């Protein structure tokens, strides 16, 4: 189907509180790293796709115009793709179609956020519609906690068991982040630390929640013909899909969550994957909240409904398990939102090309990357493989 497309370069900034650079410099840091990784110059890039969180987060209207020079976009085709938290994934998808269409051979996908210069929860508050929902489900923690509680109640799971599983995910991801030199939060924590951290929205605790980060990421996508001429091993896009569901929070089921289930199913079909738990070697899941990650394990077919805690208890999804999730430390440890989805794709590309350094899952050949956005409305998947 269409032309084959590969990721041939990935660059990301050191994420965290980046007061040492301005916004353009931050973006350029990722762009430069990606170009160096691919071994090409800005002149080789034929088109650029950029995304960030809603404009209120940047305090800039149409940030692609503001950042055009930082991306070396002068005179080039530039498109802003923005779908809230899932922006990075949507940017990657757009880059894929730029190349798959035959319109371009080498394009660059860029995502960024400088969250310490703005008001993340204030911005997210304006995602909910202004009349009915904004007054009570605005901002991230409330929404994702409701979803987590819905999950526990649906399957009648003991509260302590779900809390413990969520805490184990947190500890595992924080451990993983210690192996990732780009991660924002790099601390050694214990299950006890998570369970005793302060409540953000019951039962979600501080260490169940991602940070706000400054950071940027850039990925270079190329056609089969071009990718084969590069010295480094390309990561091939094997499958992709992105779906949303109803805008009003109460209109759709967020436990058996169709806008997560359907993109995964379609992407698996494209990639020829029948048993994701066996055939995927690693997954980079968009997990700003630990409880939500449990739901994604089920939506992506890693286990049966209501079985996600067991997956954690048996260590299947932890480092060293059958299907390790978020070896980078994931969103839980690094979240410059406009870049976050793109980092998931980039990390998956590093894994399947054996270039993930200390966070490498040995022998990884097939990886899933994912991002989520809106008030629990959108999910996108991209599957990368080591072979065409």
């Amino acid at each position, binding site marked *: *189907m*269409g*032309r084959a497309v590969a990721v041939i370069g990935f660059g990301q900034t050191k994420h965290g509180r980046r007061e040492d650079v301005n916004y353009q410099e931050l973006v350029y840091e990722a762009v430069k790293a990606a170009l160096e990784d691919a071994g090409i110059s800005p002149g080789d890039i034929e088109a650029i796709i950029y995304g960030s*969180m*809603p*404009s*209120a*987060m940047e*305090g*800039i*209207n*149409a940030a*692609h*115009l*503001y*950042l*055009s*020079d930082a991306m070396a*976009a*002068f*005179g*080039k*085709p*530039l*498109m*802003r*793709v*923005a*779908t*809230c938290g899932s922006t990075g994934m*949507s940017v990657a*998808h*757009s880059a894929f*179609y*730029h190349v*798959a*269409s*035959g*319109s371009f051979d080498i394009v660059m996908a860029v995502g960024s956020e400088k969250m310490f210069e703005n008001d993340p929860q204030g*911005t*997210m508050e*304006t*995602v909910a*519609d*202004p009349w009915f929902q904004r007054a009570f489900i605005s901002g991230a923690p409330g929404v994702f906690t409701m979803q987590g509680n819905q999950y526990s109640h649906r399957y009648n799971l003991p509260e302590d068991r779900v809390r413990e599983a969520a805490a184990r995910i947190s500890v595992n991801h924080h451990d993983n982040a210690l192996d990732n030199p780009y991660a924002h939060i790099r601390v050694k924590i214990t299950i006890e630390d998570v369970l005793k951290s302060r409540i953000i929205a019951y039962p979600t605790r501080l260490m169940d929640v991602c940070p706000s980060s400054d950071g940027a990421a850039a990925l270079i996508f190329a056609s089969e013909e071009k990718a084969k001429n590069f010295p480094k091993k390309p990561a091939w896009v094997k499958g992709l*899909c*992105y*779906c*949303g*569901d*109803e*805008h009003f929070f109460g209109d759709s089921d967020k436990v058996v969550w169709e*806008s997560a289930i*359907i993109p995964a199913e*379609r992407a698996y079909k494209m990639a020829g994957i029948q048993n994701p738990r066996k055939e995927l070697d690693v997954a980079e899941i968009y997990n700003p909240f630990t409880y939500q990650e449990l739901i994604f394990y089920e939506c992506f077919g890693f286990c049966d409904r209501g079985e996600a805690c067991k997956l954690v208890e048996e260590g299947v999804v932890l480092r060293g398990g059958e299907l390790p999730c978020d070896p980078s430390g994931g969103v839980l440890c690094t979240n410059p939102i406009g870049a976050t989805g793109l980092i998931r794709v980039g990390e998956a590309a590093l894994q399947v090309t054996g270039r993930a350094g200390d966070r490498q899952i040995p022998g990884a050949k097939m990886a899933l990357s994912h991002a989520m*956005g*809106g*008030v629990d*409305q*959108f999910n996108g998947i991209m599957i990368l493989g080591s072979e065409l």
Partner: protein
Amino acid sequence: MASKVAIVAVAQIKHDDCLGENIREISYEVSKDILNQVGMKREELGTIISSSSDFWEGISCSNSVYYEAIGANLKDSSKAAEDGASGFVYAVMRIMSGHFDNALVHAVTKSSEIPSLSALTNLYADPFFQRPVCLEDISTAAMQAMLYMNKYKITEEQAAKVVVKNLGNALNNPYAHKRGKIGVEEVLKSDVMAYPIKALDVATYSDGICAMLLASEERAKKMTDNPVWVKGMSWGVDHQFLGDRDLLNGKLKGVAKKAYDMAGITRPVEEIDAAEICEPYSFQELLWYEQLGFCGDGEGGKLIDSGTTAMGGRLPVNPSGGVLAHNPYVARGLIRIAEAALQVMGKAEKRQVPDVKTALAHSTHGFAGQHHSVIILGK
């Protein structure tokens, strides 16, 4: 174009300064209109690309609120923000990839629900140097107009003629928000906004929406006997800082050339039969004439004087009335493409230019044309 993509249906509504329906309602209306036109069910839609903008909507993640209203629920979808022309080219590429055989494109802005053009475009400016001196859409366009007048002796009368032509053309367009038979004097006497730009030189601020169905060659031939083929498309961006840019020689020339090359066009005025271009300011239409290759540098004024771009001229520009007649900011680019498509289909009714085989559509956003898109459509 590596593979053929067609426009098979377009839909818009009567644009207005304040529509009574909300964004979900007008979004549903145009999507449903498209499905009815081609006798399709929502289930058959392949992919959906919408264009809107968080600041131009007053809701962050602007596509989330109308998402299922356009029929996108659980469809593979995305949003190309800020310019309907970006949504269009993205949807075309999705079909070209072979992954989808049809695509719904949608773009919307309700200007009545958001702050003024000046307030929102002041936020285009960087926060440190350009924003505090209140650079915004009109003042940056005025600087461009002054440069243009000084360098090429373009006159305010020539710019006013664009307003007279476009609002006059809009009398034939049932969807136009603003229309009327006015004279050059009336434009010249309207209030100065930022010299030399006067109130009537500035595009109106509208509520509006547009939707379009695209299809692969195979699918299009099953759906319509009157497909409009995408022959060429190109887009590009200029520097951000105004002082870094040559405002009279921006990126439009290069963008147009690439689109012409794709479509095999070497003599635009002879080979294009109608053009729908994005002219938020009257004098910009003259400048864009030059950069689109309709005339030489500095000859935009002469071109309007000659009547070449009037209805009945060799190359009528903005038979619909253009952006001066209806300007829902993010949707305006898609409306230009839709109007150009209607011209090629021969369905433009009273605003139809006779015997259109090839039409050009243009869109722009950002200060003084920072970003341009050009699309060539043909039979």
